[in-house]
Structures are given as structure tokens and as C-alpha cells.
């Protein structure tokens, strides 16, 4: 483990997902006040501790049906206080809360929907058959809670079929929204497409995702509307099936990142890399050649130049796959060119608008349909335009 990862682990202890340590059910007893009626495993939360935090568990009316998380020194308690109004109860209402307990440094946001759904399930059972209030809690509830605890911790999902209604619980990971997909980006599979019934667009689009076709081209080939392809690719990115890399061209420039040293150190990465970049699986290239190829990528050197210098065919390297692997693993990074028009005078009006430095050459080429070679030549002749490589 390198130092960077180590620090990440140490500091982001909060971000990690921990198991559920305990589930308890508590209710407002008409004479005794808030009590824990049942918990799995037994006596995980002491009575004293519960008393000190009961205000956050059996709450005031305004906080009913809110997800409330209390972080204590050792535990994090997540609950969803609810109330059923009915004349049959001693105080005309029945308050209860089903709480999950996790480690104090674990993330619990992804359990919130589960707690809410489980509470709703219990409400339904109570309304149907007075499941909770008839005093039989200790017989029936602990097995259910135990099942939920075990299955959620091991499988991440759980089906409850007790009583007249059934419910399915599933812990969903919360991920950040994927960034928008652009025409000039190239989707690459980073793992097998899970075998399931994908929607029609996905079924139509995925055969054309080969790691070299860009989004606009995929749209053309698959005869699917461009925005639908983007939405589909975005969806696949969200599920980490596909990653986006910049379009490969022999005129592209790449540069190395500090991660290159991992290729020399990490044996696993080496095998993966050699397998990926080989022209034929029978004769993989040597690591030193691959490393040298990566190491010679600097600003100002195009892949074309490198191919002339190194002759990848002789080295048994597939240069397109090499670049793809490097970008996916973060060993190398694409250098984009951003043209900036310094003083607007002549030139075509259309093109001028895009020369602000905000759009890369790739984007401009893709939107105008001009080949990058042609455009670059044209821009380099123009003294009012500077190309910023970054």
C-alpha cells in the first residue's frame, strides 16, 4: 500500500461502509415511557445509554417520520420515529421507532431508505393484526430482526414474508451522479456487461462499444439518436461497466503521471498491462519496452512520432491498446489543445466563437466536423491564435 492510499484509508474512515451492529425496536410505553422492547443482539445498547438519547428516538411530534441519526462516541444510531393514531391505544397513539446501530465512524446514509421501509412494514403489520402492541413482540420480532441483520450484512438484501404482507429490503449504494457524456469521448468496457435484461437502447448500442468508436460514431453506427446513446453510456458509467477515454488519434499527445512508477513496482499491474497491450497473446511484449514507450510520452511528442521512434510492431505492442490501458489506469494523461483567439478580426465567424480557450480541439472538431489535422494546420498559420496545451 503506498503512502497516498494509506493516508486516504486513515482519514476517510468516516467514508467507509460498516456493517449493522445491532437492530433494536423501541416504543413509548404508556406508563414506563420510552423503552427498548427488543434488540438483536441482546443488551447491545445499555439502558443508561438509551435513556440519555431517548429524546432523539421517541421524539416530539414535529420530528415524526424524519430520519434521525445520532452519533455517539462508540455508536451511530439511525432511526425513523413513527406514530399510529388510534383510540384503541392507551394514549390514543402508538409511538415506536426501529433503529439500526453502526460503528460511529461508518457511513449510514445508505441504510436510511431501508429503515424507512422496514418501519412502514411494521406499521402495516400493526394496523392489520396488532402485531406489535399485543405484547407478543418478544416471540415474533427478534427472529425477524435477526434475519434482517444477518442478510443485510452478508447479502445486502433481505425478503420478509412474515404475516399477510411481504416486503423486500435492499441496501443501495449511494454514488455521485455521473458527469455528462460528450460526442468526442470514447466508451470502453472495464468489466463484463452483467447478463441481464437491458433496455432496448443499451442492447442496440453495446455491440458498437469497442473502445475505439466515439459516442457520435456509435450513434451513427447503431442508428440510435445521439442523445439516447449519451444517456445510455452515462447509465453504464454510473454502474462502473464503462469508462470514458479521449478519442485515440495518432496525432494525440499524452504525458506521464506520477502513477507510472506503479507499473514498475506492482507485479499484478504488470501482468494485466502486458496482456492488454500485446499484439498476440502468444508473444507478449517485454515490460521494459512497454515502460520505455510510456516513459517517452511527453508534451510535444505525438503518438505518430513515438511509433516511428519505437516501431511498436517489432516490439509486439499494440499502441492503441497501450494508450487505452495507460489512460484507464491513470498512468498517462491526454494533453488537450485549447485554441485561444487573441484579437478577433478576420476569420470565419463560426469558428471564432469556439476559440475562447474553453473548448478543446477535440470538441471543436467534433462539433464542426473538420478533421483535427486540417484544423490544427489552419490555426497554426493564424498568428492571432495561440494553442494552449494542458
Amino acid at each position: 500500500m503506498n503512502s497516498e492510499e494509506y493516508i486516504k484509508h486513515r482519514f476517510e474512515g468516516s467514508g467507509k461502509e460498516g456493517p449493522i451492529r445491532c437492530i433494536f425496536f423501541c416504543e413509548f410505553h404508556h406508563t414506563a415511557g420510552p423503552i427498548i422492547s427488543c434488540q438483536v443482539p441482546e443488551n447491545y445498547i445499555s439502558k443508561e445509554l438509551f435513556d440519555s438519547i431517548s429524546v432523539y428516538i421517541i421524539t416530539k411530534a414535529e420530528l415524526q417520520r424524519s430520519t434521525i441519526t445520532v452519533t455517539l462516541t462508540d455508536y451511530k444510531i439511525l432511526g425513523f420515529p413513527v406514530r399510529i393514531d388510534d383510540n384503541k391505544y392507551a394514549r390514543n397513539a402508538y409511538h415506536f421507532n426501529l433503529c439500526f446501530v453502526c460503528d460511529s465512524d461508518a457511513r449510514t446514509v445508505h441504510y436510511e431508505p431501508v429503515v424507512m421501509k422496514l418501519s412502514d412494514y411494521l406499521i402495516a403489520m400493526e394496523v392489520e393484526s396488532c402485531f406489535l402492541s399485543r405484547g407478543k413482540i418478544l416471540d415474533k420480532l427478534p427472529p425477524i430482526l435477526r434475519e434482517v441483520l444477518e442478510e443485510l450484512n452478508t447479502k445486502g438484501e433481505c425478503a420478509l414474508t412474515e404475516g399477510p404482507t411481504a416486503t423486500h429490503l435492499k441496501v443501495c449504494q449511494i454514488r455521485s451522479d455521473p458527469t455528462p457524456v460528450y460526442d468526442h469521448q470514447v466508451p470502453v468496457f472495464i468489466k463484463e456487461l452483467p447478463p441481464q435484461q437491458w433496455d432496448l437502447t443499451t442492447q442496440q448500442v453495446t455491440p458498437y462499444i469497442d473502445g475505439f468508436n466515439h459516442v457520435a460514431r456509435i450513434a451513427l453506427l447503431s442508428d440510435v439518436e445521439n442523445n439516447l446513446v449519451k444517456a445510455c453510456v452515462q447509465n453504464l458509467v454510473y454502474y462502473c461497466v464503462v469508462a470514458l477515454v479521449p478519442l485515440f488519434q495518432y496525432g494525440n499527445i499524452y504525458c506521464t503521471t506520477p502513477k507510472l512508477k506503479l507499473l514498475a513496482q506492482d507485479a499484478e499491474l504488470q501482468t494485466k498491462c502486458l496482456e492488454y497491450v500485446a499484439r498476440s497473446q502468444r508473444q507478449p511484449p517485454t515490460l521494459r519496452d512497454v515502460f520505455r514507450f510510456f516513459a517517452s510520452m511527453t508534451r510535444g511528442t505525438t503518438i505518430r512520432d513515438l511509433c516511428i521512434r519505437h516501431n511498436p510492431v517489432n516490439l509486439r505492442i499494440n499502441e492503441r491498446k497501450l494508450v487505452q490501458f495507460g489512460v484507464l489506469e491513470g498512468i498517462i494523461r491526454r494533453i488537450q489543445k485549447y485554441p485561444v483567439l487573441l484579437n478577433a478580426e478576420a476569420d470565419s465567424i463560426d469558428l471564432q466563437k469556439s476559440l475562447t480557450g474553453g473548448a478543446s480541439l477535440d470538441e471543436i472538431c467534433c462539433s464542426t466536423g473538420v478533421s483535427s489535422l486540417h484544423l490544427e494546420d489552419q490555426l497554426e498559420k493564424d498568428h492571432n491564435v495561440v494553442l494552449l496545451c494542458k
Partner: protein
Amino acid sequence: MEVNPLSIILVKSDSKGDRLLFRYPFQTQENNEPSSTKRKNPYTLPIVEDLLQSLSQSSSNMNKGNLAGFTDEVLSSLFAVKAELSNRKFELKVNDVRFVGHPTLLPLRKKKEQPQQDDSGIMLINIVFALQALASHSVVKCYHDLSKRMGIALKHEEKRCGYISDQTQTMTSAHDDGYTSPGSAFQIILEKCTLAMNIKKMYDDLCSTGLVSIRINKWIPLSFCLPQKVHQWHLRGKIVEPEDIDKCLKALRPYHSLLLLYPAQHMNDFTSLDGSPSLIRLLSNYSPLKNLQTLAADAELTLAHVFELTAHLVYWAKATIIFPICSTNKYVISPTAPIHLNSPLVEKFNETFSGLNLARVISDFSLPTSLGQRCNPLCHPSQQSQLVQTIIWMLQHHLLLQLHTYIQYLPTENGLHKDYKKKQLKSPSPRNSVILSNQPSASEHSRAESESGASTISETPEFTLKNFNSEHLSFISTDDDKQDYQEELLLDFSDEERSSVFKIPATNNPEDLQLFAKLCRKEYFQGNHHIEEIMYLENLRRSQLLQLLDKFRDVLITYETEDPAIAMFSCSST
């Protein structure tokens, strides 16, 4: 911004019960638009209430960056914690709002006039920050720290002059006077109570700059920096976490240099607040061309102390860390540099350097360019100094990135020898072990330790190293000894490695081979050290090292990239 507080709430709890004394902001613009705009369609069928499908309307407690949906009574009952939970971190999340505070128990000062009456003794004060639930753990930690420090200061002031008794008294009576409109009591409190003014100032500071500087009871200064916010002014849109800064500071070396983000004259207000004479001494000797070691010598401070001061300045977003500017430094445009025609930086640059265009100037760095390349001997000294000034400006704005040359030792076609790899994982990198000390012996020592641990390769590693540490005069001898010393020099290398190294003609030169073996043994060629670092640690000249790299280019592969330790400010990919 998810690091801004939604609200700051002051709650007390004593023998007379709990009460929300003050919260800021309290002027909630009561626009009940949602209810009025959501016109009900008269043709819809009333939905029969279905308990199973009773999806709670997505409950949010935020409204346009303000806390909403809680009455003062609810808040006070939530924050007036039981005694068991006091004097420790308090964290509560309700829907999408996270509350953090540090409930502080403080013994009330007995009033002299009425000693027999005032026996309540203890009051609990809780200053709670309401944040968005999305706020990261480190942000929560910082706010907890602020609340804790506030609590400590208040406790002290209560002990010294009964400040809290006074303030809570005034606030309670303002509430009890019974104002009809909800905000008016808070308005009165804000006018009367210095504590309320402090809270307002704190809120405003946190939302604007992230630097809090208040004086509690006009007596105790409290200054606080929210790093996630304060670095926004020079790194727009990028959240700098305290651990990023820690990481950067851990990688600090004596050859690095400090780059102030403000002109040194503008630092006066900061130094007066800090009051450390050594900081003033450091700033008066400051130059971006000096490395930290020189700076320490010039300011007559210890290097460790200079590191601490640097850490302080970086944390408070007053400075950043660079490699000292010299003619061999290669710069390129940073991948995150926000340069486009509408960028405010373009204008700012034009103001500082009239007649120059930022895009034009920076385009010179599209290819890796060193200062030496840019200076031509014919150009005027003033032009040269302007060039340095523009580079400093661009470094201050994180537009440039410095490239360093790293070296990777790959002796065989398949990379490093297997045992070597294992050993490498086990042994601590010398970079980690030689952080503060610059004697090379430390790394040699660690190397020796790792050697004896993995003794499969060589029979007498200690012996070799001892030979090595002593002078190598004995090796420079006649030709028939050549084979011997070669063998001896690379004794701890594997056979395969040795044979591939000996194919290189330069191994016939004892000095070259000796230097190569020495540097290799110290693991400088594992991509963890750039040329400048090796030069610094081994006291070598650049030409010596470059010659060596050229001679051994078959097994030493070089590549250029940024120094990950100090690139965090200008590169998002780290």
C-alpha cells in the same frame, strides 16, 4: 456551497429548563411560494390513503440555504443534551441537515449581591452549527472544533466575570418580554448582546471567507480557519481538505521553497494576530528563490521551526509550496488552469503586467520550457526580471506546473528481479526515512537493515556495505582486478541483473559503476526521487547525474512528471 453553515444556534440548559437563546440568521424570508404555486387540479381524484404506499413527501429541512421546518422549542429540546453527553462531540442528523456542536458544562459564577439565592451552579451551553448533511466528515470535524473552542472561551469568561450569566439573562428577558413577531426578540438580542453579535460575525465570516476572527467579550480573541472554505479564493471550485494539506506538509523537504500568495507587506494583519516573532523574522527574509534551508539559515531559525511556520502559512491559505525558482526548472501549463477569454485572471494579469496578454505569455509553456531556455543572453536584464515576475504570478495562481525527471531502474526485460521487488515492499523508502535529516547515512542504514532481512541474494551483505561506506580507493587499481571489483560492487544484485548491467560499456569505468551502484542501492531509481532531490541528498552536480543517466540508459529509464507531493494545489488528478 456545502461547507457553509445553514445556521448557528445557541441553546442553554440549566435548572430552569432548556431554551433556545439565539440563532442566526433569524430573518427567514417567509415566502410561502411552494404552497401557493402548487395549485390543486380540481379534477384529480382524491388518493385513498394507503399505508403501505405512504411515501413520505421528500422531507427536507432546508430552504434556500436556510434552516427550515424546526420550531425553536424542538431545536432547544434537541440540543439541550443530557449530562452524559456533555463535554464531548455532539452530532445529530435530521433528514438532510446535520447539526454539530460541543455541549459545554460551565459552573456559574456566584453573584456577590445575592450569594444565598444563586445556587443553581451549573449551566449547559451548546453552540450548534447546522450544516448540510452532505458536508464531509472533515468539515464536521472543523465545525466541532470551533464549537469546542467557543465553549472553552465562554467557560473562561464565565469564571472570570460571569459573562454567560449576564448574556443569558439579557437574552431570556428579551424573549420573555413577549414580542409578537418571531424575529423581533432576536433583533433586540442582536442589538444588546455582544455574544449574539459574535455569533453573527462568525456566521458572516464563515460564509464569506472561512476565516473567523472575533473577540469574545472584547477580551478573548478567537481565530479559526475553515480550510475547505478558505482555499476557495485561490482554488475556485476545489475543496482542499485538511488531510490534503497534511499530506503536502509531510512531503516537505529542505529544498522546497515557500511562495506567498500575497505580497509580504499585506501579511501584517496576519502576523499581528499571530504575534509570533519568528514568523515576522521568516517573512522579512522571504524570497521565492530561496529554499527552506536557506530561509532558515537567513532567518536564524531551526529548519524544523521553519517547517512548522510553513505548515501554518499553507493551512491558512497564505502561501503555497513550490520548488525554488531557478533556471533549470521546467514548467508547463497546469491541466486545471482556467484560462479562457472571459476568465477574470486575464484581466488581473493585464493589470499587474501592463501590455502583456496572459494567453500569449502562458502559451510559451505549452511545451515544457525552462527559465533558462526562455532567457536569451541578448535580452535586457529588466526583461528577464519581468519574466521571473510573470512566472511567480502564474505559480501563485496555480497556472503552471513544474515537471521533474524521475528515474526507473529496469535491469532486465521483465523489469525488476522478483526478490528485489519483495525487498522493496518491505523496506521503508529512504524518502520517508530521510525527511528532516539530510545526512545520507540514515538511508544507508535503513538499506542495510533491509538487506540483512532478505539475505537470500548475497552471503555477506554487511561486509559489502562496510566496504562501501569506507573509501573506495582500493578499487581503483590495475586491470586484472577489474573483474573482481565489479563483482564485489554488485554483490547484492542478482545474477541476471548483474549480467545485464555489465553489458553496459560504462561499467568499465570504476567511478561510474561505483556511483551507479551507490545510487541504485539507495533506491533512488524507483521513481520516488526526482533528479533535484538526488542532487540535493547526494550532493551531486546535475551534469554528473545526467552523464550517469546517459551512460546507463539501457537500464535506467527516465520520464518527466510533476512532483505529486506539491502538485496537489495545481493538479486535480493527484
